[in-house]
């Protein structure tokens, strides 16, 4: 079994049934996971911020919900993934116990909204999700069967 780690603002795909793709320690970040059960093709992206409008310096499209999610779906299709046979799951989006701007949304919440809106605009339905709270999560997808598990640090894994 080969485990591929998806870091901040990265995406990875695999169609090897021996592979597992994992994002460790998602804080306010959101991981989008997709799996085509016919082609046994899976992928994951690790979104850090809601919008590329915040960018400074080098542009990394995968970091942002508004540019990363469309790129992720495009790449998935280019690799042969078919949306009709695919399920999409999302996890992450935690916020501080008590964060800034009590009257507005935290980055975790903004990331969740950003990812959900982008997927909706692309006509992609979310089949399951594990979101929010104040704890970090690790998310994995097993390419052999498309199972996605989410685990809050210190808690048991949850099958999504």
């Amino acid at each position, binding site marked *: 079994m080969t485990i591929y780690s998806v870091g901040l603002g990265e995406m990875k795909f695999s169609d090897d049934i021996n592979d597992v793709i994992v994002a460790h*320690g998602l804080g306010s970040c959101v991981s989008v996971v997709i799996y085509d059960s016919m082609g046994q093709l899976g992928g994951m992206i690790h979104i850090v911020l809601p919008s590329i409008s915040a960018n400074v310096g080098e542009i990394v499209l995968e970091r942002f919900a508004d540019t990363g999610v469309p790129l992720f779906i495009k790449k998935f299709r280019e690799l042969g993934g078919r949306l009709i046979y695919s399920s999409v799951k999302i996890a992450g989006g935690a916020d501080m116990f008590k964060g800034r701007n009590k009257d507005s949304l935290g980055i975790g919440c903004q990331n969740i909204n950003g990812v959900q809106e982008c997927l909706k605009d692309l006509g992609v339905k979310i089949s399951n999700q594990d979101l929010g709270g104040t704890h970090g999560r690790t998310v994995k997808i097993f390419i052999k069967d498309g199972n996605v598990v989410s685990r809050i640090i210190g808690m048991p894994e949850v099958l999504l």
Partner: protein
Amino acid sequence: MVTKEKEAFFNEIVSGLTDLLPLPTTVMAIIQISKNPNSNLQDLVKLLDKDQSMVTRILKLANSAQYGFAKQVKTINHAVVCLGFKTIRNMALTVSVSPMFQQSVDSYLLEKEELFKHSNAVAVGTRLIAKRQEYTNPDEAYVMGLLHDVGKVVLDQHAKEQFVDVINLVKKGNINFIEAEEQILGFNHGEIGSKVAEKWNLSNELVETIRFHHNPEQAGENNKSVHMVHIANYLVEMMGIGIGYDGLNYEFHEESMDLLGLKDGDMEPLMIGIMNEL
């Protein structure tokens, strides 16, 4: 209220700190001479000449991308002349302290190297904010960020049993991690960490910054570093870099942003800046 039992526990840990996290003799001596106004650069060179292992590590750091010198720094004499007391002291601290953070910290459910990743990212973030603030010595800010969670290492060694109660209390909800530590232990990881910095004879500003990095409003009004570390820590926790069970279970004090003149719109670019440097 802190009971006598908890106070005694705190004092017992503090009395054993020198053995628990010993700083190399050379680094202690560097700190000493960097505080002495009568010392000169040759004193520093003579001291370092006796510790070639430290010289090798400092030169390696001096020639890394982090410092970005145009020409290679080949000798310690050259490094001392180019960089001066404070930077050499910060480099010696960085190379000595980093290995302490690379072990797993089981009490916080941090796997091997996770605390180092977190501390290094906070250090990078603090330095970014410091540069923006035109702080006189951004490398000093880096060290403050690097050391902010040294108390977690101490608690992992001395309070593993009590930490089960800390985690159970947090699991019940509606309490942040600092409050839970204080309720169970009688003190938090910042307070015990500041005692390490005191034992190491580091500056009062650094001691206070470690102590109040989760409660910056309690620090002295001239201490800007504590606000820089507080904000950098918040940004790194949001990014999930090296977070354990405590995760994002802390409070953010917006006053720190006001005190440094930072606006909401500055936060996300700072996160991107940290990612770009890691």
